[in-house]
């Protein structure tokens, strides 16, 4: 890192850059991990000189924050494009595929030791044909993907995997794939929690790079319920 960059990173954290300089530096930081690390270094160390003081916020501050983050219920329904009634058409084939998978991999509900796999979803299309099996492993935060051999992604598009939360019904992205060669995906803490919170996973067809608006397209390729194998709470 040049000494000029190092100086600007320090001034950014110290707070002596002008607003314009700050914006410009923040833009540069987005694709420069070295600058990000330099800033993190100073933020962590200088934090120790902040005085130990508290000042109670005004009584309505939280209410204003809450109002700002509470989504419009109508809009939510429109944007997720999902209703529980339509889910049932996917449920039966998914369960059937799951039973088949359990038989194949030898799942034993009486097993006393935790198996390596703790979350699994078999994603099937509307005909009940399995397209993708997603497993998360207990030993590392990783998702293993088994694409069906006869399944190919349209070369002009990508497919995107989504988690639908059982907590709030929201749809959130897990990953974008351009080919079925991808056999595993590293799950960071956030995506790990999305999996553990998921009611089911969804696979959609999207433009290259994935959905630009972070919402699944209407071209749903497969869906599958997320089932927990082991009883160990890894995400608490």
């Amino acid at each position, binding site marked *: 890192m040049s000494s000029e960059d190092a100086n600007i990173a320090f001034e950014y954290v110290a707070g002596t850059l002008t607003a314009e300089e700050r914006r410009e530096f923040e833009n540069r930081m987005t694709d420069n991990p070295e600058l990000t690390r330099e800033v993190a270094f100073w933020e962590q160390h200088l934090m120790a000189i902040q005085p130990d003081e*508290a000042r109670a916020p005004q009584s309505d501050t939280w209410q204003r924050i809450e109002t700002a983050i509470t989504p419009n219920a109508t809009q939510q329904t429109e944007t997720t494009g999902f209703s529980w009634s339509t889910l049932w058409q996917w449920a039966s084939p998914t369960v059937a595929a799951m039973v088949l998978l359990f038989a194949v991999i030898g799942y034993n509900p009486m097993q006393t030791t935790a198996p390596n796999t703790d979350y699994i979803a078999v994603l099937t299309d509307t005909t009940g044909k399995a397209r993708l099996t997603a497993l998360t492993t207990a030993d590392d935060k990783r998702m293993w993907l088994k694409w069906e051999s006869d399944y190919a992604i349209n070369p002009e598009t990508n497919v995107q995997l989504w988690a639908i939360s059982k907590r709030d019904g929201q749809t959130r992205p897990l990953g974008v794939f351009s080919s079925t060669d991808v056999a595993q995906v590293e799950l960071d803490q956030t995506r790990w929690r999305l999996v553990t919170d998921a009611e089911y996973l969804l696979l959609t067809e999207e433009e290259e790079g994935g959905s630009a608006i972070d919402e699944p397209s209407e071209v749903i390729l497969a869906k599958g319920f997320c089932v927990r194998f082991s009883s160990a709470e890894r995400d608490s």
Partner: protein
Amino acid sequence: MNQELNARDEELITLLSRCAIRDQKALKALFERVGAYMNAVIYRIVLSDEVANEVLQDAFLQIWQNAASYRSDLAKPLTWMTSIARYRALDRKDKEQRYSQNIPTAKDESLLENIEDERTPEKEFSSKHLDQPILDCLGALNDNISRCIQMAYIHGYSREELAEKFNTKTNTVKSWLHRGSERLKECLQNKMQWTTS
């Protein structure tokens, strides 16, 4: 940056993770735990309760929106949240001073004394939990440079305000900051090396 996380950090990280999956209760819990601490950080820069609360609101909205991008390997959770609050406070101070003069300048030092010294649980999250090699390293700097860095970081003094305060030129302040950062970094790296060897 290797981070040693204590139970409080873990709790904040869990709350941030829940914010990432849009759990509003988690954001409220964060607000209850660190809101007053962050409000004090903001107030020291903007010197107005009304503006501080608006900035605090903006900061929590940004925390909500960006919770998924928090990386525990880069920053402790309170540091990450406090940094968001500070940068928004600095933006607001710049904006207000440029357009409406609603915020007193940092020269009004009587206002700097008006921070309540409340003993609250929020303090458990603050600097006393951190190793503080920075204090030793600041102490080893020239007094003007050390004060300059602290006034900028804690009270949001701009280069121009520091120059006026120290009765010197803006370029001199800039030079102090750069020289100070180089010496601080060298000192901090030596101390970290000493600790790990």
